[in-house]
């Protein structure tokens, strides 16, 4: 059961998951905050991520009050804000990325207010035109679908819904009704970058979700190492890593908060290790 969009989507997310299914492997989805700490460093990292093994990329849109985020992503938002990051600039980053890469899906992840203030219709048109494939908006549950979810689907933009450990079977159909592209399972009841769920718990949760949907299920929150990413990839269709990458960015800034010389390489090396964990996971499990 997945929502039909009225305008055609970009097709990138569908194509990517179809190719991965063919190869029998899970997707690695890194998250970074747009303009953390600069537009240039973000673009350099973005452009390097597909070659480092990123299958889909989540790009954070800053918001002053990120209620679902832990200290690492809060700090990333503050760094981006200090550099003057805006929604418009985030879309420009995507547009730049798309000049070299027309295949890797880009999902914007953030909160509703900056989009609401931008104007929903204008935002959807500009995001689509910039090359954004989908949205994850943390503070828009199904109860508020008319705000952005339904307009997004009508505009051919995927709206990736979050399911959580508190989403019970009774509520799940409502959560799934208009989700599109894939389903994002938040593996812990908590904020980003804190606790981690066990592989067993994640496996059971994904199995439950799969009883209700044919969409790919990505798992995130609390995945910090290549080993953890590999464990998740054995039981889910994608592993999302955010805070650990963002923290690595924080750890590779100079005293003025500007990118250290090896920032981009360090981040891409880590991404490569995470990707290797994800991509080798099922092979490893089969052996």
């Amino acid at each position, binding site marked *: 059961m997945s929502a039909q969009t009225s305008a055609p989507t970009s097709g990138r997310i569908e194509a990517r998951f179809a190719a991965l299914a063919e190869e029998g492997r899970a997707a690695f989805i890194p998250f970074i905050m747009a303009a953390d700490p600069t537009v240039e460093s973000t673009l350099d990292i973005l452009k390097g991520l597909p070659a480092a093994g990123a299958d889909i990329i989540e790009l954070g849109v800053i918001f002053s009050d990120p209620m679902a985020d832990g200290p690492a992503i809060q700090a990333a938002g503050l760094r981006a804000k200090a550099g003057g990051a805006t929604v418009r600039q985030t879309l420009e980053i995507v547009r730049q990325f798309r000049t070299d890469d027309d295949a890797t899906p880009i999902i914007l992840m953030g909160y509703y207010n900056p989009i609401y203030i931008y104007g929903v219709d204008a935002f959807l048109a500009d995001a689509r035109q910039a090359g954004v494939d989908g949205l994850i908006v943390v503070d828009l549950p199904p109860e508020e679908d008319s705000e952005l979810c339904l307009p997004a689907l009508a505009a051919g933009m995927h709206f990736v819904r979050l399911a959580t450990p508190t989403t019970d079977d009774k*509520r799940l159909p409502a959560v799934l009704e208009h989700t599109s592209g894939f389903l994002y399972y938040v593996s812990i009841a908590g904020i980003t970058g804190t606790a981690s769920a066990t592989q067993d718990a994640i496996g059971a949760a994904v199995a439950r979700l799969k009883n209700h949907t044919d969409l790919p299920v990505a798992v995130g929150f609390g995945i910090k190492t290549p080993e953890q990413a590999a464990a998740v990839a054995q039981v889910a269709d994608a592993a999302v890593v955010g805070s650990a990458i963002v923290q690595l960015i924080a750890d590779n800034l100079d005293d003025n908060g500007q990118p250290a010389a090896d920032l981009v390489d360090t981040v891409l090396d880590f991404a490569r290790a995470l990707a290797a964990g994800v991509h080798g996971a099922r092979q490893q499990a089969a052996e």
Partner: protein
Amino acid sequence: MTIERPNSYRSGPDGKGHFGIFGGRYVAETLMPLILEVERAYDAAKADPAYQAELDDYLKHYVGRPSPLYFASRLTEHLGGAKIYFKRDELNHTGAHKINNCMGQILLARRMGKKRIIAETGAGQHGVATATVCALFGLDCVVYMGATDIERQAPNVFRMKLLGAEVRPVTSGTATLKDAMNEALRDWVANVDDTYYLIGTVAGPHPYPAMVRDFQKVIGEEVREQMLAAEGRLPDTLVACIGGGSNAIGLFHDFLDEDSIDIIGVEAAGHGIETGEHAASLTGGRPGVLHGNRTFLLQDGDGQILDAHSISAGLDYPGIGPEHSWLHESGRVNYVSVTDAEALEAFQLCSRLEGIIPALEPAHALCHVARIAPELPGDHLLVMNMCGRGDKDVFTVAEALGVQL
């Protein structure tokens, strides 16, 4: 912008928690099941006479309701116009109106079997009231408070600790009320099983704005009865200060459909609206989505929330309850603003003339009373909500006046 006059201003919110376009439930999926559970539990409690009887009993014998309606004769004489009455909610146990709401919610949390209570606080009045009811019922209590506020409200921090609560300093953002609320929401997301979030004002996701209003509207209901007893008729003007807006909606709600009554909410203008350093979301903000509801917010052109400023920690919040946003847009309530300096003057005036040291929050309302009362006739009945006492603010006021304690 004026919307069409509804049949009643007292029937909101709708089933999804909307007051016009305001309100709603903009929260992470993790919290949605919890919020729906709170709504179900509150609906069941409302329908249960035993719950209301228990609440009434505690309000009478523990909180000290009804609070008096007091004719401020010296202030009336000094201003030389309208007859000024104070609704004395600062005489409640813990010294503010906040306990009305805490009592209602703690009884609800107990019905829901919750063992751990979290709360956010600005001035510390809601934190103290929450810590108080947690002590009363032996429940664990964690209060999130901005580090800036902890500094300027030291007496209340110590009171919370005496009451057995853990006060967790919040250093993110501006380290004030909005950041404390973010942190409380983060705590709730991580402790969904045993924790109840006791929100202190008429904001947050549905059902909180409606529920907190229901617990505060006793203020206005008492005023109606007391004014009829004192003057044989209803008041002509109501004035209350607004941060989140719980004391104001508490006073206003029962009178919203009485068209003849002027209703005025007073926001904090801080250093002045024109300086950008204020907390007047209706006067200086625009609609947006924060902390679970759509309402007027102080924000920049990119939808980033701006820091509020007020000398009063209790008003230092960049948003306002969604019902106030709706009453503002519908034109039923008139919202004005008062600066730090003006509030300080009113604070001193009231202390000297009436022997009542008001909290800095109602000192804002008092300032507006002083503006309008002289222009009104001597038989005009004006009620101001004295929603908190000023003991907590003496250090702040001393500093502002350049007095070394």
